[in-house]
């Protein structure tokens, strides 16, 4: 007769290999699968958690579920301008910032100067998209932790910004607004009034959000001292944006490597200070976003007061054929440093477009942040780096 107990014991002793772990599973360890359909992975991301009891020993992220061959598509365009609708679809909650970076890169290759008015409108739109992106990040983060109300408040405020976008270009999510050399439309006549009205409306809402979520005891308990990312590890992983600044590194391309007209505005770079726990914890990363929204409102207010007159389409080239060569241009998007590495072979089609997606890089630091934390903290850590899978997978 078959010896069941011995058979089961033999099964238990089989060596278990987990791809990506780099060693065999120890007998006290267990693999928990999280995703690809999971409410707090913010899209289709799969995490394999190697746990010992309640402690997470390692995390293995699996990505690629949303891979759409963006870089291959670029090589099959007939025109550099045609790439813009595709860059919209990378970080789809802050599409304006993606277009901005791409336009800056191609303009640098073509060596063209765009009118001042275009630059100012681009900055206003990019800062608005930073507010929109951070509102989603903060709202969904609260929901991950268990606070539902802030999400609704954030979505309500986001609608006002989307109305401004819709007023300017007709689209609410994917704009195709910032073109190489200019904009698809000039802003409407009542644009400045609406922007001013929004700034007046929005400032008190940040305080409301602070009272509701940021200084909430339960929220602080869940996020302070969780997922600490030390500054030198952050730099070695090349993480950027609020994830880097949350670790106390004062690095923002708008200040340290200014592009467009950012050097004309007065604003501060918020960094994590470890007010509730250690520097570089989830609460610090969260709080950097709150402060960045305040700074974005400052920039928008300055830009809208100084908005020069002019034609927004005068510099749009009829034919885009950059001379053979290559360029790497990086801009500061809400998620971090978005870089475009573009190679031209002198034809009207890009030879190679490689995107440094901030979310891809920030997500690669997730295992470093998560080792040694509790299973429930993984949700808090993942939410605090604010990934968009459209950009991770491209």
């Amino acid at each position, binding site marked *: 007769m078959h010896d069941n107990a011995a058979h089961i014991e033999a099964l238990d002793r089989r060596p278990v290999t987990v791809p990506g772990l780099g060693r065999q599973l120890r007998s006290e360890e267990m693999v928990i699968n999280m995703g690809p359909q999971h409410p707090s992975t913010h899209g289709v991301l799969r995490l394999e958690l190697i746990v010992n009891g309640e402690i997470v020993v390692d995390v293995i992220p699996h990505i690629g579920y949303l891979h759409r061959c963006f870089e291959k598509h670029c090589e099959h365009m007939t025109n550099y301008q045609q790439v813009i609708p595709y860059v919209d679809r990378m970080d789809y909650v802050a599409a304006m910032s993606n277009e901005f970076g791409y336009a800056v890169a191609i303009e640098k290759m073509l060596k063209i100067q765009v009118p001042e008015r275009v630059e100012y409108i681009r900055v206003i739109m990019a800062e608005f998209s930073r507010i929109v992106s951070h509102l989603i990040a903060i709202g969904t983060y609260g929901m991950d932790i268990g606070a539902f109300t802030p999400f609704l408040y954030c979505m309500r405020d986001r609608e006002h910004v989307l109305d401004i976008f819709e007023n300017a270009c007709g689209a609410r999510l994917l704009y195709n607004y910032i073109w190489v050399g200019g904009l698809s439309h000039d802003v409407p006549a009542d644009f400045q009034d609406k922007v001013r009205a929004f700034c007046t409306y929005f400032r008190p809402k940040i305080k409301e959000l602070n009272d509701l979520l940021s200084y909430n005891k339960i929220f602080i308990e869940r996020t302070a001292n969780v997922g600490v990312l030390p500054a030198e*590890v952050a730099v070695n992983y090349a993480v950027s944006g609020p994830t880097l600044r949350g670790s106390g590194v004062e690095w923002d391309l708008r200040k340290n490597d200014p592009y467009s007209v950012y050097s004309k505005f007065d604003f501060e770079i918020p960094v994590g200070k470890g007010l509730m726990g250690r520097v570089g914890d989830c609460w610090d990363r969260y709080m950097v976003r709150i402060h960045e929204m305040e700074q974005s409102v400052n920039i928008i207010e300055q830009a809208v007061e100084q908005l020069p007159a002019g034609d927004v389409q005068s510099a749009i080239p009829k034919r885009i054929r950059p001379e053979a060569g290559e360029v*790497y241009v990086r801009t500061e998007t809400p998620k971090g440093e978005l870089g475009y590495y573009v190679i031209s072979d002198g034809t009207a089609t890009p030879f190679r477009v*490689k995107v440094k997606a901030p979310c891809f890089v920030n997500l690669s630091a997730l295992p470093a942040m998560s080792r040694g934390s509790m299973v429930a903290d993984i949700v808090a850590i993942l939410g605090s780096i604010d990934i968009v899978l459209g950009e991770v997978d491209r």
Partner: protein
Amino acid sequence: MFDLRMIPQEIYDSLRNNFGDAVLDGKLDGVLDPWIKVAPDRLADIARFLRDDDKLQFDSLMLLSGVDYTGGKLGVTYHCHSIKLNHKITLKVEVTVENPHVQSVESVWKTANWHEREAFDMYGLIFDGHPDHRRILMPDDWEGHPLRKDYTVPEYYQGMKVPY
């Protein structure tokens, strides 16, 4: 404040003094981003030197990209940056399709881990010394490397007809 930034020529000279023939080529003027071409089998040492040398301090790798130059030549481009000193340089290596081996810089800059996996996935470049050399975006059982210029879209995936 005293400016410690190095110009591309100084970076080139520094590498040339320390690594001699492993520095193959460089284009420092007349291009948007100055670049230095190095030997793929000395890359890890050069990268470590770039990071650890007091005057260079390239603590951050902004981007690592695979490139297919067509005609059987593949390449990897490294955009290095120093947050401490705020200077940049671009490194390039070139290999052939028959022998696509490049040294991994994962031990120097951790960020290279996923970038190198992506370059392997998309171009079939092999990074010697990488601790977790797997595909990253495409399925594990995918055949071919999609971003190669001579790649043809397969009609079948695992025996199933692709309906477009």
